[in-house]
């Protein structure tokens, strides 16, 4: 690569390097930094995870593995894949060895997770994302942010994981929300000077305040 990056052809010359002339940095002989922990571990027998005693505990382990990766387990989806899951779930809830498994209920589903791994906020976000109701997701979080911080919510908030909505999804949901009225009438839109769109709840923020918070949210100096 040229000193200052890629140039048009002919701008720089390319030097061919024979990989055999490069030092073997990963050759053990070349590793000069001792690692006591690795040396100590080298002499130890491998650690074996105990197998679950029954299928309910296997389900619990499945939930734990997902939680540690930042995922909830949808009981509805799992039950569709394996009809035994509802029974196993009942057994799991009464098994003391599965006492760390908790459930998060929404109107659409029950989600399983390991206690102490995910924050309450992330449980809520994850469950909303898995429910897949874009309108409810946006309304819930706009109200939450307006009340708790208090702040306005940028539309690109919903592009982020775990929602990963597309622009089209967000636009469609926002259009629905703003046109619905009734129980969604508290959701309003404001814009920053950049033209970027924000939503807020009039239950918690006035229009004047919301507009100023949108400006505040975008300052980038």
């Amino acid at each position, binding site marked *: 690569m040229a000193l200052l990056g890629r140039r048009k052809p002919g701008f720089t010359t390319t030097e061919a390097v024979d990989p055999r002339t490069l030092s073997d940095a990963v050759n053990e002989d070349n590793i000069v930094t001792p690692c006591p922990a690795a040396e100590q571990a080298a002499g130890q027998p491998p650690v074996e995870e105990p197998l679950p005693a029954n299928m309910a505990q296997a389900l619990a382990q499945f939930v734990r593995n997902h939680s540690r990766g930042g995922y909830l387990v949808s009981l509805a989806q799992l039950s569709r894949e394996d009809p035994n899951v509802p029974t196993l779930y009942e057994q799991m809830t009464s098994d003391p060895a599965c006492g760390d498994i908790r459930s998060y209920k929404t109107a659409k589903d029950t989600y399983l997770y390991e206690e102490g791994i995910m924050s309450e*906020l*992330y449980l809520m976000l994850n469950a909303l994302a898995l429910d897949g109701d874009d309108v409810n997701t946006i309304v819930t979080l706009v109200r939450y942010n307006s009340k708790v911080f208090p*702040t306005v919510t940028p539309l690109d908030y919903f592009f982020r994981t775990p929602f990963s909505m597309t622009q089209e999804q967000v636009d469609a949901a926002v259009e629905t929300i703003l046109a619905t009225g009734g129980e969604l009438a508290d959701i309003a839109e404001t814009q920053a000077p950049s033209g970027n769109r924000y939503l807020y709840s009039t239950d918690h923020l006035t229009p004047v305040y919301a507009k100023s918070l949108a400006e505040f949210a975008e300052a980038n*100096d």
Partner: protein
Amino acid sequence: MSVQNGINGWAGTVLRVNLTTGSVTREDTLPKYKPYIGGMGIGYKVIWDEVPLDTEPFSEEAKVVFSVGPLTGSGVPCSGRTTITLLSNWSRGKSIVDAHMGGHIAHSIKYAGYDAIIIEGKASKPVYLKIEDDKVSLEDASHVWGTGTFNTNKVLSAECGAEFDVASIGPAGENLVSMSCMITSFGNSGGAGVGGALGAKNLKAIAIRGTGAVKIADPVEHKNLCDYMIRDLVGGNNNHNVPSRPQSWAEYTSTVKNRWQGGPGVMWGAAPDGAIDTGEQPSGQIAVAAYRATKGVFDYGDVVQQYIVKSGGCASCPVRCYSEYNVDILAEYDLPTLVSNTCVPAGSGPTSFYLKDAMHDFKDEGDSKIVLGLHGAYVMDDLGLWENYNNLGREFAWCLKNGVFEKMLPKEEFDSIPWHLMEEGDPRWLDDIMGRIARKEGEISRIGEGSYFFYKAWGLDDASKNEWGVNMYDMIGGNNNVTYNGYPKHHSSEDGWQSGLLYNVMYNRDCMVHVLTNFVRSGSPFNEVIKPVLESYFGEGCVDAPKAYTPINENKVKLAKWCFLQKQWQDSATLCDWMYPMTLSSSPARKYVGDIDLDAKYMTAVTGEEWTMDDILFSAERISNMLRGITAISFKIHENMDNLRKTHDAVPAWVFDKDPDVPAFSEGTDKMDREDWEKSLTMFYEAMGWNVDTGIPTRETLEKFDLGDMADKLEELGLI
């Protein structure tokens, strides 16, 4: 070197280089400079003792002081700063200013055995200063004179050796442009006119290598503190403590655009061996801290991810606020594609040189700021041009938008400018227009004199003197001037109510204080985190919610004074003022409570002496009073002004008159109230021990800090 000298923390030696005579002398740092800590404190002491304040800043008689502090190079996180102290050539009063340079050169200064390098005199021809531990020499620089900083740093590194750190000035400094800086590493700059001050001395660069170390009194405690800080306190850049992307462990997600942009799905898309997902970055995990800032996304949005090579930063920094990029689009213009910078110089600064309508997408929607911003940052750095926290850009933008150049430039000059490049949104426009400023070519280059003198030259500081009927200081919109002295706000009342405005008006350049913005924009909720944590330090009512301010009170003044003193401490220690103090924590287990005593713990571990924050802030208050006393004397000498309150500290009208439909102290505005502001100033002066009518330190205050000689001078001039 300090280890050999047996001194903990400090290197022990101040180096003095006289460019006129070529003499190199050394003096002990201690005990003389200990009351001033290091860095800024040493710089202020040297200027006060040795440089008459009527000295022309760009002259042989002026001095420039490079200095580091007892924590620099000790391994304390975020201690890679160099403070450069000089007299301003560009702001009203021509008083004392400092530049603050990151990169890696601070460590090299320290490891070479020096706490400060005093540059004095003027070389008869272009030279560079070469330092390798105790070997100090002046070397011919004629072969790099006239070339950019990147070439200079590369050539001198090749000449001296790859282990040398180099900082150099560019054409702007050589041509004595006031808006000039010096550049080290890959775009780390020290501004405030340093380039011109060194150019006036024919000093092109400093190349330095140190093979020593910093002696630490209690290395075990030091290591424990460093781990504790990164594990339990540090968040992203500016120590923003809540991620902006949902993470499974995080109790909050920021909806404010903050400086913790890394997270699941946020990529370093141009990493050499394939894209890297910055992933989850839980508080408590030291190894992932450097993924958090991913600052490019803050500066440019998600579209920039494809160009990010990695997060770079200064020596001893686990935060990494300098994203490095490979913007291959620039190759189509035969321009360098490997670029790096951060914040204003890389974004709104360069793009201010285009009309908004002229900017266009290159490959993806919204990528013009990336292409133009990063190339502009490269050009400015290479020219050694300083943007005065984008006053330069704002002024250019205003002139461009309002047809000022057409009226003010001679026709021949106006017609010689390739405006079509600007109109086409071509990045090469920046090479041309910034080059004219850096080379002082034509009337347009007066913008490089800095706001104060530029406004005067074109009559833009008086509505009756220009056909646009504006006073650039007072106008609402497109104006960030925080005083009438020629520099903008730097996170002022818009972030920090009266407290922010108070410390913004104390300096002779943009204040570069980030203490308040670090928690106000942290992404934390106000009522659950920010308010309780800050009130636990400073008492009830010290902090306001964004855009919902309340009248001044004692605790806001207490907070303002603390922030003001912190700045002097950080630049003396030297610690990064984007990160310190550790007001908040990223740790849910700590309830987000930071550790504002951490600095003292570091000082104790490193020096082996018992330091408290009271000790630290006492020394910082001494330096603060030096700033104020020197400013008062400069204003008297250069402007015949004897009241800082009515002159230096005067705040432009827009701060009070913006948002005309929203009253001050109501939700929806950050505007200030004039009567309340006057009360704020009075309370702040009282807290500092300054005369409330003039804003000048009293003799009693100065003598408390052993600054009786300064009181004598102020008295001699009739200022106290």
